């Protein structure tokens, strides 16, 4: 026997609606969590969280039973992913064998999709950069992402890292972009076959005389070296399933527009009641004031009025 359960409140219903699979997805949320960490790793995770503030969830409690690469070690990770509706996770842990370890992974349908493990080296936090604070980009703006180096094309692991970084850093997929809101770049450089230098810069747009402004980058941090350790690619069937896209766009319901038999458009227009009586006049001219007008009339009829009378009730 089954029982139909529906949410009791509209808010719960909307929340479930948000979590349901969509035809066109616009962005992924990131879950940032940790096991046993060092001070440095704590800083890395916090800075990452601040960079992705609007679409990230930070867990600060220690979750030591998470071992994403081992069988059975991903159960609580999948649970957290489902609980928070995050499909990218960053798990920080440190050990003697793998100091300052970050595991970046993605989930598909709340199951682990792929994993990559990187070590953090040469970390410089955002506070250690000196720059004009006016240039600091606003939170939540769409970043540019720049990849430099042939390693991203030739090396398998870096290719994978590039895809994961792009997925994590790109933010929300938008259709319309405000050009005034641009102001940050992530620069990823493949230094060697397993090392990537990642830094965060602000963009200064300078006038150049033509439409396209001249750009200038100012490093605002954080910056770090990511050294690839272990990685696991998605298996083929899962990848095939996850790469599916829909041809048709979701239809938006158009209200108040119908077509007639000939194929012409008919629109219903609703005009709200014009409340003329309650309308405020743009400027109250002195001549329009009631008391003055009345006083004038009185004076023209009889003798000049001696006192003003307020006729408010």
């Amino acid at each position: 026997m089954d029982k139909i359960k529906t949410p009791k409140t509209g808010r719960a219903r909307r929340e479930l609606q948000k979590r349901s699979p969509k035809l066109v997805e616009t962005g992924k949320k990131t879950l940032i969590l940790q096991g046993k960490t060092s001070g440095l790793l704590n800083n890395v995770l916090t800075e990452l969280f601040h960079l992705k503030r609007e679409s990230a969830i930070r867990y600060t409690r220690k979750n030591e039973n998470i071992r994403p690469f081992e069988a059975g070690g991903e159960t609580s990770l999948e649970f957290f992913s489902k609980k928070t509706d995050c499909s990218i996770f960053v798990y920080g842990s440190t050990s003697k064998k793998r100091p300052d370890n970050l595991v970046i992974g993605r989930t598909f349908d709340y199951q682990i999709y792929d994993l990559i493990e990187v070590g953090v080296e040469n970390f410089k936090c955002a506070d250690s950069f000196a720059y004009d604070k006016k240039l600091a980009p606003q939170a939540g703006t769409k970043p540019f992402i720049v990849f430099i180096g042939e390693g991203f094309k030739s090396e398998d692991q870096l290719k994978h890292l590039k895809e994961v970084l792009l997925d994590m850093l790109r933010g929300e997929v938008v259709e319309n972009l405000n050009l005034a809101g641009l102001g940050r770049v992530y620069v990823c450089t493949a230094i060697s076959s397993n090392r990537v230098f990642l830094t965060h810069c602000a963009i200064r747009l300078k006038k150049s005389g033509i439409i396209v402004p001249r750009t200038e980058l100012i490093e605002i941090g954080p910056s770090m070296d990511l050294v690839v350790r272990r990685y696991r690619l998605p298996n083929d069937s899962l990848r095939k399933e996850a790469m599916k896209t829909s041809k048709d766009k979701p239809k938006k319901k158009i209200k108040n527009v119908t077509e007639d038999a000939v194929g012409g458009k008919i629109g219903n227009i609703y005009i709200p009641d014009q409340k003329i009586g309650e309308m405020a006049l743009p400027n109250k001219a002195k001549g329009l004031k009631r008391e003055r007008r009345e006083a004038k009339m009185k004076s023209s009829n009889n003798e000049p009025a001696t006192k003003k009378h307020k006729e408010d009730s």
Partner: protein
Amino acid sequence: MDTHNDYEVDLGNLVAFDPFHHFPSANSAREELVSECIRKGTELVQEIANSLFNLPSTEDVDGPIVKLPPPSTKLPREKPLPKPKPPTKWELFAKAKGIQKRKKDKVVWDEQTESWKRRYGYDRVNDDNDVPIIEAKMTDEPGEDPFAKRRSEKKKKVEKQEKSRLQNLKNAAKAGALPSHVHLAATALPITGTQAASKKLTKDELGNVAGLAATATASGGKFDKKLAGEKPAKHEGKFRKFLPVVEGSGIGSQEREQTDRVLSKLISANSHDILNVDKAVNMYNVKKEKKRRYQQGKAFVPSNKLKPNSKPMKANRKPIKKSVKGGSSSKKGKGR
């Protein structure tokens, strides 16, 4: 800036990729490396900006807005594609019969009350409460309440609809197209032959039973092999039991006896301490002193105290009486 064609630009994601750049010396100083990266990054950002600022833009209050092309880099989805909802049984039937949906008005003319009423819901047309008389027909069975019949028929219809709704939702769940807000929760199967479905055991109850079972061996569970993930029993000792507090015969009187026993035991053990002679003598002395003082004070005070009090009392009384007399009726007095 002369090698434009070497860059891969994905404008939808604002991403640029230079796949040919190679850093000559890996062991060069860190600062040099960083500045080199920034220089190269600026070039690439300029490349994105070149195509971005040349897109047709519309002016807005906050700044120019451009329409981005869709991202060209393919990234995996986070959830599978939503599946189409399978047709319900009625939809299948309607299609087979060629029945088409018609729009119905929301309000209908109600002849009973002679007014416009909603078709469905609260205060609807042809509501059970609005039908005062049902005319008898030839086919009516004698001794049957037509109103009760109406009500039960309505109830049956609702039940049937609920059943078919569940069936349709089950089919949708099978196709993986359950609406996001619906959750089909499995309920326990009723045991055949019984009326009510058996209650689901709670986690605690199960734990208790498991604990009992684990200790029900000759050794009290001491030498038993522990299963993987088995926890020690939650209730190792006995459960505490309390006697009823309400007076009565049998068990009811036991509670009183119990407390009596405790009390008498306490009293007998501390009997010598019950009367503190020193304290009693002290208290007696203090009381005596107080009494004496009070009597002394009384000898002087009373004549002075009473006189001023008596006068205002009398003065107050007279106007009150007058006002009461002056009032014509008690109602008027209350009104004030």
